[in-house]
């Protein structure tokens, strides 16, 4: 049954009693996550959250587990994490459940183990949006390169699966070259360059992560003289993902055509919001929320699917996009 | 006490290493209870036979028998070790382990856990039994050369095998140490132990062995009772030609010639004290002394391998920077270090390259080295020193000991040095090579170099114009040419007349 969110999602009641909230950052080497890492302490102040010094698990689930134990030892009452590896966090979630510590998972949806709330955008939707955008621009035929993330990451897999399924179903005339890049710019550049050599008629590129793929892609296209206005028949349509400021810059310059803005600010805001709510004993139901999103039911908890808008030249200057707020 | 039973027989052994034939249908038969010498020039195949007799290598053809029985299968190491013990030419000491463990390597215990206390006391007993004065608890890597050698011998003997091989055990020992070793060997022979003894010091063969086999160019040449094969015939058998003993040349020292190598007030704590030394152009000065007398330490200071605590070294009129080899070389010094394997050459590099490192700057301009000129220089050195090799491009690591040593000497002579320091140049080197090496030193002196010759061998020292004898770190005597063995040995032992 469709319900409503338990409370208003605005930071209304700041009279924090609750308890300390521990946050683990997944990595310190990505533009997207660095923005998130900046937002957390900033928004914690605004939301009146009693934030412990955040830990950082450097993309390593074993470190994440160790950090969680340390946070618990230091008295955390709720934990916010972003397990980039969604399988190997299961026992930790079980342990936390056993200790009645609510967990908010950001960006990824753990495969197993109880979570209070997953704060995420629909990564499958990113893939579908990218597919639809490119499909339309190419008129349903031609060749595109997909610079994928890492095979071990759900987000990468979700994006790839949705993109592939949508292409097969809606644009069977388009050939997709899938390139696994391990979220690595060097690999992306080499693969794209080789593919363009092999198929000079490639007309579209889908990058799974602008943070790592943007600069190398532009460099390769530039070297081939393919950075030309959309009207030019040589134009290669490029759609990115993440929504960092440099992507917006590239859209403005006409170097790429679109990106999906993955809301770093909202990730931080709602992660803290739900963690605090959990400590305060609040509960939530599936259904639409007051912040343009929908909570869905998972076997092991709930997921608030935040909006991830498609950004093109038309809306690139929208002040509400997080990429326009960072300095 | 000798019977006709053969303790060990090797019949028609052939061993090839690629194109090299190390043994060509060679053989040896050693009668039970005798001490049998195996002699031959460097590369004759002696050590190869040793590794076949101890089961480390399998012959391509031929057969080994112990006491008339066929040798055990190659995999059965224990059976081999009960039949034959060996002190190999190459050290088999493991430096990072203690003396006690080295002694009982792979037999620390019969079964179960090792009892270290018991092992240590067994080791002490063993060391005591063989009169080896080292701490069972110290690391083998911290031992000196003689102590290591004694450790190898004690270990080899401790297996209780009735047949023992000693491959050049005396090459690195000084006189008294050699005598101590021979005393032990005699005692063993009295207990009926059979021995095979390899040495390039032929007088040792006559001193300790009853019979001798000669190998030449991978073949067995002759086996005889030592009494039936006098020294010159033995050398002829080894070299395949009639040859005479080395005759040092007569030179009259020119006391007005300039001093080319001088030391003033040199002291190095724990090694030697207040040493003064002056070597003139054309003069060869010997440096003698028993073990630990400090002679090597002093020589190494002269060339810059060590840095003295006080005092100065002057080469060819230039006071060189202490402890700095390049500055000594630049001033006109050449030297042969004590341990050729450690400091003498780079095994993978060619003869030509090894020998020309000090003169690389003369083989081309702007840091360039002309390979053609290098090869040409190398070929010349090979001819001058009679180095047995396939050519100047052969890596030194592939040469036999004596030939490698000649390359080291070639390097020392490369720059036509004014001052020459050679340390134990003839260790492990066969008679013919020895003559060539000593001759080269005399040639250098004739060309006007002043040389310091450090040696444990009285024979080598005979080419010297005078010999400085060191005792406990002091130069105690300056002996002019014409000394007798007893005179010099007495001085070395610190017995003053």
């Amino acid at each position, binding site marked *: 049954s469709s319900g409503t969110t338990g409370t208003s999602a605005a930071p209304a009641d700041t009279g924090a009693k609750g308890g300390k909230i521990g946050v683990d*950052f997944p990595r*310190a080497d990505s533009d997207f996550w*660095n923005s998130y890492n900046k937002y957390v302490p900033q928004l914690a102040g605004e939301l009146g959250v009693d934030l*412990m*010094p*955040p*830990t*950082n698990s*450097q993309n390593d*689930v*074993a470190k994440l587990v*160790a950090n969680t*134990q*340390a946070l618990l*030892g*230091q008295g955390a009452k709720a934990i916010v994490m972003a397990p980039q*590896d*969604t*399988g*190997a*966090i*299961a*026992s*930790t*979630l079980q342990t936390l459940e056993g200790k009645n510590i609510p967990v908010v998972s950001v960006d990824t949806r753990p*495969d*197993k183990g109880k979570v209070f709330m997953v704060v995420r955008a629909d990564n499958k939707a990113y893939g579908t949006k990218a597919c639809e955008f490119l499909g339309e621009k190419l008129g349903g035929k031609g060749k595109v390169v997909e610079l994928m993330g*890492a*095979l*071990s990451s759900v987000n990468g*897999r979700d994006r790839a699966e949705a993109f592939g399924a949508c292409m097969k179903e809606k644009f069977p005339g388009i050939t997709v070259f899938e390139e696994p890049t391990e979220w690595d710019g060097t690999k992306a550049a080499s693969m794209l360059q080789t593919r363009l050599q092999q198929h000079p008629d490639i007309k579209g590129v889908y990058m799974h992560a602008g943070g790592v793929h943007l600069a190398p892609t532009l460099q390769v296209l530039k070297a081939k003289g393919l950075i030309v206005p959309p009207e030019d028949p040589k134009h290669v349509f490029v759609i990115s993902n993440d929504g960092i400021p440099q992507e917006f810059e590239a859209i403005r310059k006409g170097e790429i055509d679109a990106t999906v803005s993955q809301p770093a600010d909202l990730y931080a805001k709602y992660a803290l919001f739900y963690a605090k709510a959990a400590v305060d004993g609040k509960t939530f139901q599936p259904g639409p929320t007051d912040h343009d999103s929908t909570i869905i039911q998972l076997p092991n908890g709930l997921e608030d699917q935040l909006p991830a808008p498609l950004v093109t030249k038309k809306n690139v200057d929208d002040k509400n996009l997080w990429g326009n707020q960072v300095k | 006490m000798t019977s006709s039973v053969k303790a060990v027989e090797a019949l028609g052994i052939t061993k090839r290493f690629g194109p090299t034939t190390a043994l060509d249908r060679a053989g040896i038969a050693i009668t039970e209870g005798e001490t049998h010498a195996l002699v031959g020039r460097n590369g004759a195949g002696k050590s190869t036979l040793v590794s076949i007799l*101890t089961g480390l290598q399998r012959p391509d053809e031929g057969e080994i028998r112990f006491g008339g029985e066929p040798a055990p299968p190659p995999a059965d190491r224990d059976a*081999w*070790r009960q039949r034959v013990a*060996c002190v*190999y030419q*190459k050290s*088999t*000491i*493991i*430096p*990072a*382990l203690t003396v006690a*463990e080295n002694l009982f*390597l*792979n037999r*620390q*215990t019969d079964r179960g*856990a*090792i009892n*270290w206390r018991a092992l240590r006391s067994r080791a002490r007993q063993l060391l005591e039994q063989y009169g080896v004065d080292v701490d069972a*608890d*110290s*690391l083998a890597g*911290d031992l000196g050369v003689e102590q290591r050698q004694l450790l190898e011998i004690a270990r080899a003997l401790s297996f209780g095998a009735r047949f023992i091989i000693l491959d050049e055990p005396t090459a690195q020992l000084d006189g008294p140490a050699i005598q101590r070793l021979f005393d032990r060997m005699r005692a063993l022979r009295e207990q009926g132990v059979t021995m095979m003894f390899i040495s390039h010091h032929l007088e040792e063969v006559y001193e300790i062995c009853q019979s001798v086999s000669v190998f030449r160019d991978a073949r067995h040449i002759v086996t005889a009772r030592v009494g039936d094969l006098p020294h010159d015939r033995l050398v002829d058998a080894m070299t395949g030609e009639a040859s005479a003993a080395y005759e040092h040349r007569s030179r009259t020292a020119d006391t007005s010639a300039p001093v080319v190598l001088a030391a003033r007030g040199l002291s190095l704590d*724990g090694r030697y004290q207040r040493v003064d030394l002056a070597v003139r152009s054309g003069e060869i000065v010997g440096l003698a002394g028993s073990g630990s007398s400090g002679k090597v330490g002093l020589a190494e200071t002269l060339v810059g*391998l*060590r840095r003295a605590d006080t005092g100065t070294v002057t080469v060819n009129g230039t006071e060189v920077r202490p*402890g700095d080899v390049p500055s000594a070389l630049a001033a006109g010094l050449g030297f042969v270090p004590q341990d050729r394997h*450690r400091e003498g050459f780079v095994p993978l590099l060619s003869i030509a390259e090894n020998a020309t490192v000090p003169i690389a700057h003369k083989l081309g301009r702007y840091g360039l080295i002309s390979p053609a000129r290098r090869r040409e220089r190398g070929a010349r050195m090979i001819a001058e020193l009679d180095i047995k090799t396939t050519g100047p491009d052969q890596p030194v690591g592939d040469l036999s000991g004596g030939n490698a040593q000649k390359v080291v000497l070639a390097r020392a002579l490369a720059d036509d040095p004014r001052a020459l320091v050679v340390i134990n140049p003839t260790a492990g080197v066969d008679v013919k090579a020895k003559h060539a090496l000593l001759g080269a030193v005399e040639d250098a002196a004739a060309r006007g170099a002043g040389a310091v010759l450090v040696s444990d061998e009285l024979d080598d020292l005979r080419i010297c114009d005078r010999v400085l004898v060191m005792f406990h770190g002091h130069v105690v005597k300056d002996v002019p040419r014409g000394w007798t063995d007893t005179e010099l040995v007495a001085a070395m032992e610190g017995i003053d007349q």
Partner: protein
Amino acid sequence: MTTTKTSPAVAVPAGRRIQLGRFRDLTLVPVIVVLLIAGSFVDPVFLTPGNLINVLQQQSALALVVLAEALILIAGKFDLSLESTVGMAPAVGVMLVIPVASGGFGLELPAVLAIPLCLLIGGLIGAFNGFLIMRFQLSAFIVTLAMMIVVHGLQLGLTQGKSLFALPESFLYLGSATWLGVPAAIWITGVLFAGAIAALGYFRAGRALYAIGGNADAARAAGIRVERVLWTVFVVGGVIAALAGVLETGRLGGISANQGVGWIFMAFAAAVIGGVSMDGGKGTILGALTGVLVIGLVENILTLKGVPGEWKQLVYGSIILIALMISRLAGGKAQD
């Protein structure tokens, strides 16, 4: 790597060398003491039994890889592929028993076989390494580097990069059980370390590793079957790495495609700061253990202190460097 041939000009007096050699494997003890004191100032939680047990538990799988690597290093060889075994062995072991729906191969062998199969796979990887290195006389470094890629590639291919979390009970049990109040993983690791310390200190088979690593020819001459021992060491190393994978899987409740990736550097760092030589023949298992502890304590303290992520690596690397220098100065000997 670095040559051991110290020139006579810089050699250390024999006497002092002997004395200190004894304690070389304990040169990190002062570092550990300093870390314990520093940690107690950083956070009162640090010195609680709970936290220290956490540190041990977190390090237990890495400690086993360090143990395996130390054995191989002491014998004078090298194995980089251990880190891939940590992920691949349990992944394939599990896939042999779970149904296709959960990501298995469809064989559905009895679940009790999962751990034995996993250890078997680890052993096979070690045996294959040993085969390539000994039979073909290839460099251990480069063979195991290639094998590190191959083994991990096999895991990626077979699992399609997906995590496995339908684990047999036995894995989960080992990951979560506590015996006498201490996690099972700590017991298992402790027992294996104790066994290895005993074997390398008091048994011929263990001493043979030192002999081989110190001078393989001398070992051969002493009747040690060098090739056979080395092969055994590679197999044992693979099995221990697979066991590390089992413990890690149990602790985390799933096997990700990246399990073990990047561990090998940490394993080397731990072994070497603990006094195990890269040249073979030197160092002790106890020393290696102190190396693991230093790394574990540093990580724990940095976490408790809340060092910002972007500076953490710098601090961490610097502390390893300092530990290295302390162990060098305390040990009084040139390192290799």
